[in-house]
C-alpha cells in the first residue's frame, strides 16, 4: 500500500498527467482515423519520450496504446471502416446501428464497454499476473493453433446464410496472406521475382481494402444512379446509453473482458482475434441472435470490451516475461527499455514502484479516453450529415494516407486499390466479406503455429490432441463445423422449410 501511495504521488506530477492526457488524445485521434493505427501512433511517440523522464514517457506510450485501441470504434461505427484491425468486428453491428440512427448510442456503448474491458483486464493483471503468465506459458504452438482454428470456425456463423460461400471467402482470406517472405523459412512466395512483393500484404492494408473500398465504390455507384436521398439528416440526434443499457449487458461485458484478457496474454494472438471470438460468443449466447449483423448493441459491446481487455492481457507477458504479444507492445517494450526498465521477472522485485506507476497510468489513461470520447460523441455524429459520396472522397484520401503510413510504401496504396476492387466484385456476387477478414486476421498466425508445432513434434499430428486446452478447442471446432455442415446438408436435401440452416442468419452489410 505504501508503494501504491508513493507510486501515486510520483505519477501525479503535472508532467506525467499531461503526458498521459496527450497520449490518450493522440491515440484516440489516430485510432479513429481509418488507416492510422495505434501502432503508427506509438512508433511516432517513441522519439517524443526520449526527452521525458521515466514516468511521463511510459504514460505517453500507454495513453497512446489505450487511446488508439479505444478510438478504433469511432470510424467502425460511423463510417463502416475500422479505425484499427482490432475494431473490425465492431463494424458488423456498429455500422448498421449508425444507419438506424443510433450512432450515438453505439458510440457510447462502445466507449463504455472499452473502458470496462480495460479496467477488468487491469484488475486481472494486478491480482494474478503470475498465475496468468504461467497459464499463458502453457499455450504452446499446438494449443495456440487449436485456439486459432476455433476462431476460424466462427466463419460458419458469419457466412450470411451460405456455408459454401463462407468457406470460399475464408480460404481467399487465408490465401491473400501467404504473399511475401515466409517468416520461418525465408521462402519467397508469390513474389514473381520482385522485391516489392516481398513486403507481403499487411493486415491493415487488407482491412482498408475489404471494408473501405467496397463502401466507396458503392457510394459512388448509388450517387450516379441518382439515389440521392436525404434520409441521414434526421438521424443526428444524440442519445447516450443509460446505465440500464450497460446493466443489461454487464455479464456479457465481464465474459468478453475475461476472454480478451486471456487471449491478450497469449503471445501472437492479439486484438482482432479476441474481438471476433467475443463477437461469435455474444451471438451464440444472445437471446436475439437474429439481430446480429443488423444492428445489435451486444454485437458492439462484446468486441469492444474484448479488444480493450487485450491491452491489459498483453501487458501480462510483457511485464512478467518481457515478451511483447503484438507490434504495439513491442514498441512499448523498447520505450520501457530506453528508460531503464527491463521487463521480466526481476522487474517486480527490483522496481515495484514502476509497476504501480504503470497501473496508475493505465487507470488515468482510461479516464481520459472515456471523458474525451464521450464528450466527442456529439461532434463525431455530425459526420453523418455529410452526404455519402462526399464522405467517400474523404475516406479515399484517408485510406491512401493510412495505407502509406503503415510501412511508408507506395505498394500498399496499390494493394488497397486492387484488393478493394476485388472485394467489391466479390460483394456483388454475394460472397460475404467478413470471413475473408477472419482468414486475413488468423491466417499468418495459424500457419506459423501449425508449422512450429509440427517442427517441435517431429511431424506427429497427435500434439493437437495431447493437452487439455488443445483438446478443448479442437473438440469445440469439430462440434461447430460438424453441426453447421450437417444442418446445411439436411436443409439442401430436404424440401425447403423456412427457419432451418441456410435461411437462418441472413443479413447484409449493405
Amino acid at each position, binding site marked *: 500500500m505504501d508503494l501504491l501511495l508513493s507510486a501515486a504521488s510520483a505519477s501525479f506530477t503535472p508532467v506525467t498527467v499531461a503526458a498521459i492526457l496527450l497520449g490518450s488524445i493522440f491515440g484516440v485521434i489516430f485510432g479513429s482515423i481509418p488507416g*492510422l493505427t495505434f501502432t*503508427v501512433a506509438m*512508433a*511516432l511517440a*517513441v*522519439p517524443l519520450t*526520449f526527452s521525458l523522464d521515466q514516468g511521463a514517457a511510459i504514460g505517453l506510450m500507454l495513453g497512446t496504446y489505450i487511446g488508439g485501441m479505444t478510438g478504433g470504434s469511432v470510424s467502425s461505427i460511423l463510417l463502416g471502416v475500422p479505425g484499427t484491425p482490432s475494431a473490425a468486428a465492431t463494424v458488423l453491428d456498429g455500422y448498421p446501428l449508425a444507419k438506424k440512427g443510433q450512432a450515438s448510442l453505439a458510440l457510447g456503448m462502445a466507449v463504455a464497454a472499452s473502458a470496462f474491458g480495460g479496467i477488468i483486464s487491469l484488475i486481472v493483471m494486478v491480482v494474478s499476473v503470475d498465475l496468468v503468465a504461467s497459464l499463458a*506459458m*502453457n499455450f*504452446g*504452438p499446438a494449443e495456440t493453433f487449436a485456439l486459432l482454428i476455433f476462431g476460424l470456425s466462427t466463419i460458419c456463423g458469419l457466412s450470411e446464410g451460405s456455408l459454401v460461400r463462407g468457406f470460399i471467402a475464408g480460404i481467399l482470406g487465408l490465401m491473400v496472406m501467404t504473399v*511475401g*517472405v*515466409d*517468416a*520461418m*523459412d*525465408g521462402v*519467397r512466395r508469390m513474389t514473381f521475382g520482385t*522485391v*516489392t512483393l*516481398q*513486403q*507481403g500484404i499487411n493486415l491493415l492494408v487488407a482491412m482498408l481494402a475489404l471494408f473501405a473500398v467496397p463502401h466507396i465504390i458503392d457510394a459512388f455507384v448509388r450517387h450516379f444512379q441518382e439515389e440521392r436521398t436525404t434520409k441521414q439528416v434526421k438521424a443526428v440526434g444524440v442519445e447516450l446509453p443509460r446505465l440500464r443499457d450497460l446493466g443489461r449487458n454487464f455479464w456479457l461485458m465481464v465474459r468478453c473482458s475475461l476472454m480478451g484478457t486471456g487471449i491478450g496474454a497469449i*503471445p*501472437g494472438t492479439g486484438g482482432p482475434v479476441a474481438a471476433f471470438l467475443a463477437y461469435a460468443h455474444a451471438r451464440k449466447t444472445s437471446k436475439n441472435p437474429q439481430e446480429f449483423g443488423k444492428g445489435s448493441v451486444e454485437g458492439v459491446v462484446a468486441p469492444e470490451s474484448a479488444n480493450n481487455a487485450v491491452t491489459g492481457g498483453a501487458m501480462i*507477458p510483457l511485464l512478467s*516475461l*518481457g*515478451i*511483447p504479444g503484438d*507490434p504495439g507492445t*513491442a*514498441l512499448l*517494450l*523498447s*520505450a520501457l*527499455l*530506453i*528508460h*531503464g*526498465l*527491463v*521487463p*521480466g*521477472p*526481476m*522487474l517486480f*522485485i527490483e522496481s515495484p514502484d514502476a509497476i504501480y506507476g504503470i497501473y496508475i497510468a493505465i487507470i488515468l489513461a482510461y479516464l481520459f479516453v472515456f471523458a474525451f470520447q464521450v464528450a466527442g460523441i456529439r461532434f463525431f455524429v455530425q459526420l453523418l450529415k455529410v452526404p455519402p459520396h462526399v464522405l467517400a472522397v474523404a475516406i479515399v484520401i484517408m485510406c491512401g494516407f493510412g495505407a*502509406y*503510413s503503415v*510501412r*511508408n*510504401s507506395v505498394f500498399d496504396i496499390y494493394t488497397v486499390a486492387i484488393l478493394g476492387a476485388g472485394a467489391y466484385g466479390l460483394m456483388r456476387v454475394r460472397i460475404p466479406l467478413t470471413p475473408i477478414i477472419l482468414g486475413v486476421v488468423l491466417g499468418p498466425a495459424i500457419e*506459423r503455429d501449425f508449422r*512450429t508445432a509440427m*517442427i*517441435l513434434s*517431429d511431424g506427429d499430428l497427435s500434439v493437437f490432441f495431447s493437452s487439455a486446452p488443445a483438446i478443448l478447442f479442437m473438440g469445440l471446432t469439430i462440434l461447430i463445423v460438424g453441426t453447421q455442415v450437417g444442418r446445411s446438408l439436411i436443409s439442401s436435401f430436404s424440401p425447403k422449410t423456412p427457419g432451418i440452416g441456410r435461411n437462418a442468419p441472413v443479413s447484409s452489410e449493405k
Partner: protein
Amino acid sequence: MNSMKTLLAGGAAVIALAFGGAARAQDFPSQPVEMTILFGSTAQTIGQLLAELMSEHLDERVVPVSRPGGGGSVGYQHVQSAPADGHNIVWNSNSISTTYYSGATSFDYTAFEPIARISTEVAAVAVNANSGWETLGDMAEAIREQGRPLRVGASGRGSFTHLATEAMLESIGLDDQAIHVPFDEGRAPVELLAGRIDAAVQWPGQFISHHNAGKLRILCITGTERVEQLPDVPTCNESGAEGFEMTMWRGLAAPAGTPEHAIETLEEAARLAVEDPRFQEAAKTIGFVPDFAPRDEFGEQIAADDERLAELMTRLGLSER
C-alpha cells in the same frame, strides 16, 4: 505521418532559405535527410534515437522512416534506387549480406557507400536452468549421450541469430543432431521457459531478467569479449565452441555514388551522436555497444563479413548465389 513531418520540415527549409539569404558554401544537407529503418522493435528505437541526435549536429533534420519487410530487402531496395545525394541513407546491418546471398536482393554491399559503424550487438545462447548445463560443452555431451536431437529456437531461416546458431552448433559438433525451430520476435524465451525447446539463441536483452531470476541460464554470448551487462557470462569460445564468433554490427550507408563531402558531413554527425551521453545511456538499457568506426574501417569490416557470411551460407546450403 513521417511524410507529414518531412513535408513540414521541408516547408520550414524553404522558408528558411527564402529569408535566410545566401546558401552555405557547403550546401549539404539542403533538405531533411531520410534514414530508412529496416527492422522494428529495438533496432527501430536505436535508429530513431540516432536520427534525433544526429539532427542536432546538422543544418537539417534526420528523419527516421520505417520500411520493414523481406528481412531488410525492401528498405535496401528503396535506398539503393534513391538519388545518391546524401539525403537518403539506410540504418544497415549484416543483413545487407544475408539478403543478397539468400537471393532476396539483386545487389550486394557494393551498391552502398559506408558512412560509419555505430554499434555492435552479440547474441546469447540460453538454456533452461533445470537442464543442469553450465557450458556448451555440457550441452553437447548430454545431447550426444541421450542420442536425441537438440531443439534450438532462433529467428527465421537465414536471419542473424539462425546463422549464429548453425555456426555455433557446427563448432561443438552438433550440427547434424539439432533441429532449428524458427520463432518470430520474443517468443523463444517462453518456449524455453515452458520446456518445449532445449536452447535458444536471441539478443541477451530477452534473457537477462530470466537469467537473474534463476529461471534460464545464459551459457555464453557469441562475441569475442564479454559484455558489460553480463560480466560472469563467458564467450561461446570460452564455453566450448572453440574458434566460434559472430558479431552483428549496425551502421549507416548511402547509395553508391553519394558525393564525398556529404558522406563526411554525415560521418561527423554520426560520430558526435554516438559520443553523446544520451546515446551511451540508452545503449546500456537497450543492450547494445556503441562502437563508432569511421567509414574506411567500416567498409573493410563490411567486405570481410560479407566474405565470411557468403562462405557460411554456402556451407549451410542457404546461399542462392
